[in-house]
């Protein structure tokens, strides 16, 4: 019967074919405003300008006008499957404080109406306890005997495992973002860390070992997002600590107003070297979290959509820009914990 099938090109009409103003940017406490502005392209158009002309951006804090952002055109030029494109980069002088209710109003000559984005600057998290000594699980990696230098760091014989005890005194605000970083003498590229993360399940007091790939699957009600290196361009990763950042993002629903442990362990291929580790814990706002969460799923499923998976629903990426698209999120001041390990000899 499918031999009889025929195809027809559809002439698409409708308001959804018109471009939208795109505004992106993560605002950070203690730093100045930054936004990237462009416009979208109808999905059937392979080429076309995404540069938004005549961009203007205004910053309001707590409903009070603060400043007009300065606009620098054609700052970014990127190349992708869709071709190259240009954007505007908007910056300001105001330094964000915790609890600021921020509103951006962005307009462009290409659009009749301005778009708005609202965000609240998150607080600083409180780390009440940081333990480098507790051995949580005595576990030997199955391949231990085959590769003597291949350790699991939760081994009872002194491999590292650490616990954050994080006291969430802010039940009403903030998702949790966690950076993992490392610096050590020698060539940083040689160290292969597969950072995994576990949390203390409040009900069963069991530690789940969250492998990076499977991390999302372990939680039923409040998907944490293990974002790996993908957000390196987006968040302030305290780059003074090095370039090998890993991001884990958790829903605030997981930690709502309670005391929780965050446990770390990883495989260490170079236990003989002195190493310095750093952990950075900060809060992001809900918009930011929902963007990361949805974007992570979008990336995971995009290969299926590329090959035309007819059997699954496309993944929606979250947007909080009213009248347009994009994400304007916020990140709070991080708490950073450093540690030097030299017991691997």
């Amino acid at each position, binding site marked *: *019967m499918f031999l*009889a*099938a*025929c*195809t*027809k*090109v*559809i002439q698409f009409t409708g308001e*959804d*074919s018109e*471009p*939208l103003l*795109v505004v*992106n940017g*993560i605002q950070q406490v203690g730093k100045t405003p930054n936004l*990237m502005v462009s*416009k*979208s*392209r*109808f*999905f*059937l*158009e*392979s*080429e076309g300008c*995404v540069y938004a002309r005549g961009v203007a951006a205004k910053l309001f804090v707590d409903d009070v006008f603060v400043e007009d952002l300065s606009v620098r055109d054609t700052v970014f030029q*990127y*190349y*992708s*499957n*869709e071709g190259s*494109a240009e*954007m505007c980069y908007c910056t300001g002088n105001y330094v964000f404080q915790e609890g600021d209710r921020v509103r951006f109003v962005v307009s462009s000559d290409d659009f009749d109406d301005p778009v708005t984005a609202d965000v609240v600057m998150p607080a600083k998290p409180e780390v009440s306890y940081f333990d480098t000594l507790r051995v949580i699980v005595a576990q030997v990696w199955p391949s231990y005997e085959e590769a003597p230098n291949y350790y699991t760091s939760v081994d009872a014989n002194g491999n590292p495992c650490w616990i954050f005890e994080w006291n969430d005194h802010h039940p009403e605000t903030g998702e949790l973002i966690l950076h993992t970083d490392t610096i050590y003498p020698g060539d940083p590229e040689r160290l292969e860390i597969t950072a995994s993360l576990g949390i203390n399940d409040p009900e069963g007091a069991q530690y789940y070992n969250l492998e990076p790939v499977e991390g999302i699957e372990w939680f*039923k*009600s*409040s*998907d944490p997002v293990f974002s790996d290196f*993908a*957000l390196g*361009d*987006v968040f302030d990763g305290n780059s003074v600590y090095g370039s090998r950042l890993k991001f884990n993002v958790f829903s605030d629903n997981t930690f709502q107003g309670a005391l929780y442990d965050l446990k770390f362990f990883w495989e260490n291929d170079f236990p003989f070297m002195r190493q310095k580790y750093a952990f950075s814990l900060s809060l992001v706002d809900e918009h930011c979290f929902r*963007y990361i969460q*949805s*974007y992570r*799923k979008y990336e995971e*499923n995009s290969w299926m*959509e590329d090959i*035309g*998976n*007819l*059997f*699954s*629903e*496309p*993944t*929606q*990426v979250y*947007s909080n820009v009213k009248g347009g*698209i*994009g994400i304007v999120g916020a990140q709070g001041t991080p708490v950073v914990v450093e540690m030097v390990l030299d017991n691997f000899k």
Partner: protein
Amino acid sequence: MPCSENILILQEETKWGMSMRKGIVRIMFLMLLCSVATGFAQNGRAQTYTVSGYVTDGNSKETLLTASVYDANTMRGSVTNNFGYYTLVMPAGHVDLHASYVGYSKYENAFLLRCDTVINIQLDASIALREVAVVGRAIENNVTGTQMSTIEIPILQMKKVPAIFGETDIIKTLQLLPGVQSGTEGSAGMYVRGGGPDENLMLLDGVPLYNVNHAMGFFSAFNPDAIKNVTLFKGNFPARFGGRLSSVVDVRTKDGDMQSYHGNFSIGAIAAKMNVEGPIVKDKTSFNLSFRRTYYDLLAAPLINMIVKNESENMEKTMAGYYFYDFNLKLNHKFSDKDRLFMSYYSGDDRVYVDMKEEDAITYNNGMEVTNVEKLNTKWRWGNRVAALRWNHVVSPQLFMNVTGTYTQYRHLMNVDYDEECVVKSNGVLLNNEKTGYELGLKSGIYDLCGKVDFDYRPHEKHDVKFGFDVTHHLYEPSATAIRVNDEYSSDNDTNDNGTTINLANARIGAWETDLYAEDNWDISNFIKLNLGLHYSTFSVEGKTYHSVQPRASLRALASENLSFKAGYASMTQYIHLLSSNTISLPTDLWVPVTQNLLPMDAHQVAVGAFYDWKGFEFSLEGYCKFMKNVVEYKDGASFFSLDATDWQEKVCMGDGYSYGVEFLVQRSVGKVTGWLGYTWARANRLFNRQGQELNFGEMFPAKYDRRHDLSIVLSYAPSERFDVSATWVYSSGNCATLAMQNYSGLDVGSSIGYVSCRNNYRLNSYQRLDIGVNWHKQKKYGERTWSLNVYNALCHNNPFIVYPKVTYDYNEQTTKKQLVQVCIFPLMPSLSYSFQF
């Protein structure tokens, strides 16, 4: 963002609905008790007697379901039940008993009622059947019955409706009725009043059938030759039904002629079928046997073999094909007027098979012989087995009992076996023999064992009570995969076997379901009639037991002889879900039970309507509003079509559904021109905003089959006994699809994100189809032959099946071009079929 302002209001309504529901249950329980008690009390005041018996076809003795039996003096009466049995309770005195059924001459008998009387009524098919169609009853008809949102279609009328490839299809005919929508082009999926395809209870002789589709849903599993009667309930469900949210399709098969042998056979464009029925012991035992099978694979097999051999001369054997079949058998034994036994069996499968063998032998000059043999054997089948044993017993003239034991099985089995053998010999001496290959086995299914007892009780002339209970054991086998990898090597001095076997399986889940119901059809006065019912069910799974009390009520107010107004409320609970693609029916569709995490689905439906009869035309106008709780959808990006071992519960999320609409139907049942016009205006939305289970970011979105307009016109014209012509025209708004309309740069500079404003944000083109069917009949020496010509989509309207963005690259211009392309699978499909009835 769509409809966000409605969410709060609807949530408030939901809370209100929940608290109201408890109140409704209490009130209705009391009313039900009162009505029955009143019946007994009234029964005691006046001397009454019962008139009871079976209504059958005068020739074949086939029982007639829903035939009207009434006293013409008082216009009080009843209809026969699913076994053709009726009971009337009347005061002593003169009775003018009438019985009627569509297509049969009316029965009249006046007598003096002085004691309980048994009258078995035989009706003669005296009216020319070709002029008869659709619904028509004297009592409990369009205007006078309490039941609304119910349509009964005689199988004769269904056979007249033009069909694709000439294959009459019950489900496709039901799709032409208002309130019922089809899935994609050609599919047999049903979407009733905003519900999903898994929310329809398909009953074959009262036994649930899980997979009602063949060939990815292009055909239904019901062979029309075996069927006597089809009734669709799309709302205001009687209390005896439970287990699904949106509709009940009650299909009853023929019992078999008690008097003589006859049958028919036919051959169409893709399938051949036959039906034989007759007495085993005259007036005592009868049988009805039917079989249908597609034969395309038999015709194509030699062709495939020839093509493959032309491609590769080493190919020794090639067998590949697809077919489906249905087998129905029903035995009916009448012990006495009080006792009957029925045995029915149905088996239907879809099967795909591939059997290939290729041998390649090379002999070198040095005496070395290398022989390669490759074998591929694939067997893939899925389908139902249904068996039922039923005992009818007339306990007393007022009390009819039906005891049923049933077994239902739906299985999906796939086995792929690939083997490769390489034999190396030197001058006839074996040097080595290497065998590699793999075997993949997939299995899923559902197995039900059920015991059921139903009673029809007529305590009083104004009360018609039904009650009963059933217990079902479900065994769900969500999926089991076995993979065996062969790697065997042997030579003259060494043998190695590195084969491995992997077994992956979701655990089998057992569950117990019990149902208890009671309903009363209560003639309060000549103008007011009330149907009250309660359905209570429990479902025990994984150590947890769910309970559900489902009140049902419908009220009829007769404004005049030809005009009535009706209102009804029904609550339904469903304990199973179907994980499917939502677009086409595939064997990988999975029935799964509720679990500790996945809650039962609930629906509450309110409907009101006006019903009017005028000069042979029946008009109905109904409005409905339905709220569904805990409906299931796949998460973003999740699909049943995945190779990962993720637990199915992790792929789905729960939310709520809201639908409302207006349905209009006008139909003509008798005359040379018969048919109906149905129109539906409807909305169906989904809201998934529970924590961790958000879809569309917690905003309301249209359901996949939310269609605003749906119009069907079905006309049949039979100018003579030898010729009839029919036509169907269908128009409906397009289905929804989710499309990323805009591409934009995300936070990662250089990334390109497809922007989806809302789930199901794009509406496909509207659907239009004109089908024409012509039948030529001729009486022959041994029976009647019929040639049928059907043209599906006669206007060749390009109806959307799927839509996808097509990307083409022009190498000369070095440009990329994107287009949105719509695929139509049935542009214009003529077919010819032949049948002979003896």
